[in-house]
């Protein structure tokens, strides 16, 4: 502080150290003179290398189906459509026959149309929080660049469908939580049916 220029030289020392830290030989040199140094190389060559994302990394939502694509968990209750802050979800359904009775697949009603406009979606995850059926989850795919505003960014039901296996693969701990919750729910609804079955053979 007293001698003019010392502050500037000190600052230049910092930039020199940071420069040296980006090279292996530089790190060896720094360690040789007794300066602790870490790997200063923090950038990656993007298209060739990809960053490892954390498990919770979220991008766009997708619809979960259990075994076959027509066995989707969504029952078309439209809660996510209502709660979506930027209103990017559009659901038509539940599917009905000519008499207006709801059609069922695997014991559940299902949507006729389920579109998400990815250009509007802000990846907030509120649809996942509010879904009572754990039917919608967040994907970690992020490369969706498209020259076309509407054609390729409005995802329909077919594009959104992904298996529960896939979900387990990308988010193992979250999938385990969801599975436990679904199993508990099934156990809760199952008991009245279960005791009803065994007495029948015994009485007959």
């Amino acid at each position: 502080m007293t001698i003019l220029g010392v502050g500037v030289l000190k600052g230049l020392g910092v930039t020199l150290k940071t420069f040296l830290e980006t090279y292996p030989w530089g790190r060896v040199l720094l360690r040789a003179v007794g300066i602790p140094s870490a790997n200063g190389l923090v950038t990656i060559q993007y298209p060739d290398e990809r960053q490892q994302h954390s498990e919770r990394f979220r991008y766009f939502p997708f619809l979960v189906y259990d075994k076959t694509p027509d066995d989707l968990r969504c029952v078309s209750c439209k809660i996510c459509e209502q709660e979506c802050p930027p209103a990017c979800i559009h659901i038509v359904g539940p599917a009905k026959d000519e008499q207006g009775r709801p059609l069922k697949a695997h014991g559940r009603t299902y949507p006729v149309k389920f579109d998400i406009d990815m250009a509007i979606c802000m990846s907030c995850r509120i649809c996942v929080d509010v879904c009572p059926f754990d039917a919608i989850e967040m994907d970690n795919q992020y490369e969706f660049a498209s020259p076309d505003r509407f054609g390729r960014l409005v995802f329909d039901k077919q594009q959104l469908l992904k298996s529960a296996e896939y979900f387990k693969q990308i988010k193992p701990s979250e999938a385990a939580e969801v599975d436990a919750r679904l199993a508990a729910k099934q156990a809760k609804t199952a008991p009245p049916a279960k005791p009803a079955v065994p007495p029948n053979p015994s009485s007959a």
Partner: protein
Amino acid sequence: MSQTELDAKLLEVNLGPQHPSTHGVFRMNVTLDGETIVKLKPVVGYLHRNHEQIGERATYIASFPFTDRLDYFCAMSNNFGLALAIEKLGGIAVSERGEYLRVIMAELTRLLNHAAVTGFLLNDMGAFGTPLLYAFREREKILDLFEAASGSRMMCNYVRPGGVRQDVPPGWLDQARRLVEEFPRFLDEFEALLTENEIIRQRTQRVGILPKELAVNASATGPLLRGSGVNYDIRKVDGYSIYPRFSFKVPLGTVGDVYDRYYVRILEMRESLKILQQALKEINDASPAISPKGLALVKAPRTFRPPKGEAYGRIEAPKGELGFYLVSDGTPQPYRYHIRAPSFINLTILEDMCLGQKVADAIIILGSIDIVMGEVDR
């Protein structure tokens, strides 16, 4: 020779609208006498997104992802402010662990904001790249923590009334402890680079002085106010959340110039690290991350109908006092939703700080206020 003798005219210059080093889109209408500023009119509104009106038509929970986009550097603390207001309005208790996690997130946000804004200030001064990228290197480590906890780097949408949306993943706290341990090394390096640098001192000392009285009268808050030597920190004054449990100092400036504001930020980062150390030590593993009432609100936002009334939740955001004012009429949507944005209020005294200074100083004075236009225009 005076102006009249030469019959010189004042020159009106529009600085912007542009992206003045990622503060956002902003224009200054400057009237110059030679190189000296005689009048300055900030022009805002380029980034207006109708946030308050959207908030009045959406449920309380649906406003959270929009608050991320107010001050896009400090998503976590923005969420925190709104959560406090909703808790006051609906009488929602907060879980113990949730309180700690929120404070940890808010202080990490302060670290990354102050580091980045110092980099931007140097960028405005013409030191292109170097200090900014050093700051961004450290910021990236904090953003990695945010991504691991919330799933998103910047638009976290993590804090909720009653706690936080999800507990942090296993091992996260140890990672945070390691970061807090290593961060002072970066700060020492950063200070060696900047604090005693003669060029920076020459450039920033006695520039853009904000007198104490004016700062108070203009209701400036945050490092801008404390740089002028006014001891006012909402964490101390209001004692919201669990801040009274931690011991930390409030760093103050003496002159109120650009250099003081820079240095107050550096010292605040060191105080934040103290809070983080204490919080990471005391955090209790047993309790859930969110209280039952808060969880019910997250799962079913439309069932939350707070009683008629109003609430004001405020926090010491990195930029100053961030307040959320909510009026409820008993429906799932707020009747009125207003945000007191620190960037906007602090920007109002830009002219007083710039008068009589050179035009090049206006740029660094703007940089030292620390504004983000997402918050100014809402």
